[in-house]
């Protein structure tokens, strides 16, 4: 069943490619590691994305390329709360829910996004932190809000402080006019899951082509085992912790016995 679906989609894809007039450019990309394992002493690392722009006969000569790379981490629901002064103390009053927003978000380009494309194109292509869709629950509605919304800016600021959201207009470097690379920094508290990398190629303010790649972050070792057990097997985990506490206390009373 799955094989057949796969075969059909491959055929459709092949048909589309041949049916289309030969595209002027093609993006070929790869990341340095498609599977990052986070070990207990992991303190962050950097993946490298590299690629090249393949030209063909239809490519207009002397085109200047721009690249925007957007890395999306696994998605999750988040809540942002705001403290206000009530009765002389600071307490959480207002809150906003963010639905299925990326837990990690990196937006990298070779020069400022404003210089790459017009505001209209930026919005349509969701380029940059201000244009990425971060869905909020507003009353009964689901929508993204204006970039200046206090909850949205606070959310991005807090995520950026942890190194989980980042934007840089100099992270992508062209080694030759067609060969490029970009680092993808992954901090120590990087969430596990599948990450998608969306690469968009621009020339003269217009989107030329795009491609996607992905990598996976897995945690291995004792810590992950503990975390998994705690979430999936609360009873056993609680029992083990209880036994551990009793044993430690008992051992101490033997080791330090005075008489």
């Amino acid at each position, binding site marked *: 069943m799955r094989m057949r679906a796969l075969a059909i989609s491959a055929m459709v894809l092949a048909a589309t490619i041949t049916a289309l007039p030969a595209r002027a450019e093609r993006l070929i990309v790869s990341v340095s590691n498609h599977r990052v394992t986070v070990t207990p002493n992991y303190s962050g690392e950097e993946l490298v994305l590299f690629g090249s722009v393949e030209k063909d006969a239809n490519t207009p000569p002397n085109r200047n390329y721009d690249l925007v790379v957007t890395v999306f981490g696994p998605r999750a629901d988040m*809540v942002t709360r*705001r403290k206000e002064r009530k009765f002389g103390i600071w307490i959480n009053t207002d809150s906003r829910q963010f639905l299925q927003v990326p837990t990690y978000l990196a937006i990298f380009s070779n020069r400022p996004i404003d210089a790459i494309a017009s505001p209209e194109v930026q919005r349509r292509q969701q380029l940059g932190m201000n244009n990425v869709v971060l869905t909020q629950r507003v009353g009964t509605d689901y929508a993204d809000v204006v970039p200046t919304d206090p909850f949205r800016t606070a959310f991005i600021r807090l995520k950026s402080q942890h190194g989980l959201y980042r934007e840089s207009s100099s992270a992508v470097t062209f080694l030759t006019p067609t060969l490029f690379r970009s680092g993808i920094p992954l901090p120590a508290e990087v969430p596990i899951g599948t990450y998608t990398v969306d690469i968009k190629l621009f020339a003269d303010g217009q989107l030329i082509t795009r491609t996607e790649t992905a990598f996976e972050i897995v945690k291995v070792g004792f810590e992950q085992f503990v975390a998994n057990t705690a979430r999936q097997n609360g009873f056993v985990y609680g029992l083990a912790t209880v036994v551990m506490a009793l044993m430690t*206390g008992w051992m101490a009373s033997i080791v330090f016995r005075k008489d």
Partner: protein
Amino acid sequence: MQLFLPIADIPVNVFLILAMGAAVGFVSGMFGIGGGFLMTPLLIFVGISPAVAVASVSSHIAASSMSGAISYWRRRSIDPALAVVLLTGGSIGTALGVFTFTWLRSLGQLDLLIALSYVILLTTVGGLMFWEGLRAMLRARGGKPVPTRRPGSHVWIHGLPLKMRFKRSKIYLSVIPVVAIGLLIGFLGAVMGIGGGFILVPLMIYLLRVPTSTVIGTSMVLTLVTMLFATMLHALTNHLVDAVLALILMVGGVTGAQFGARAGQKIRGEHLRLLLGLLVLAVGVRFAFELGIKPTELFTVRETGGAA
């Protein structure tokens, strides 16, 4: 040495946590208390979320009260009947506490509740202890003997029905206040991540007139069981118990406690109470201060699930 805490989800320095465990253990050994009211705030100040701190500290307190309870059991200074009655209330209180904890967490008001309960409880108890210690010290300096216990005086507690005889403590008492105290301690323990020894022991001495020979041992049994129960419930409902963190704390704590107990024997009782009062008061004031000043960051973000 950096270690990644699986549940707290942050990297910490093992030696820092170990030292914190030892320091709190030292203090708890010196004063004969569980030390949860110091451990939980310290963890919060290092950057561990209050929820994880409260849940993990409960297993740490269980370990230290286990070793305490064993040594008191050997000296036959535990009143089993009294412990059982206290535990009836304690278990219900703990369950209620964990339920409240979960409910407030979903509302986003858990951190506030933890901070507020610390302020109220610690400043009151700390202030009283400090005052009591100061008075006792002044009296001792004046050359008068320090009255330790006023036997035979009847308070309203003794007029309550459902009386029961607690043989080892040699008291005849209604079970109602005993269950109520157990309930209170269990509730506070689950919500605040404290054993509650520093409230329980005075309550048992002054209100229930439990003799000093059995009071500490019996209170340790209550602490042990309620904290084990709290650990279990926190693990089941909120998945917030960090076993790795707890183990480091336990090892540091039980070691520090041994040295603390030795140091405690060299200090006079009223000085000890004065010092403990000051310590409790200081933690309470620290929390009050935190609530009152404008936080540098007004916003907080928390994952509410749905990770795909």
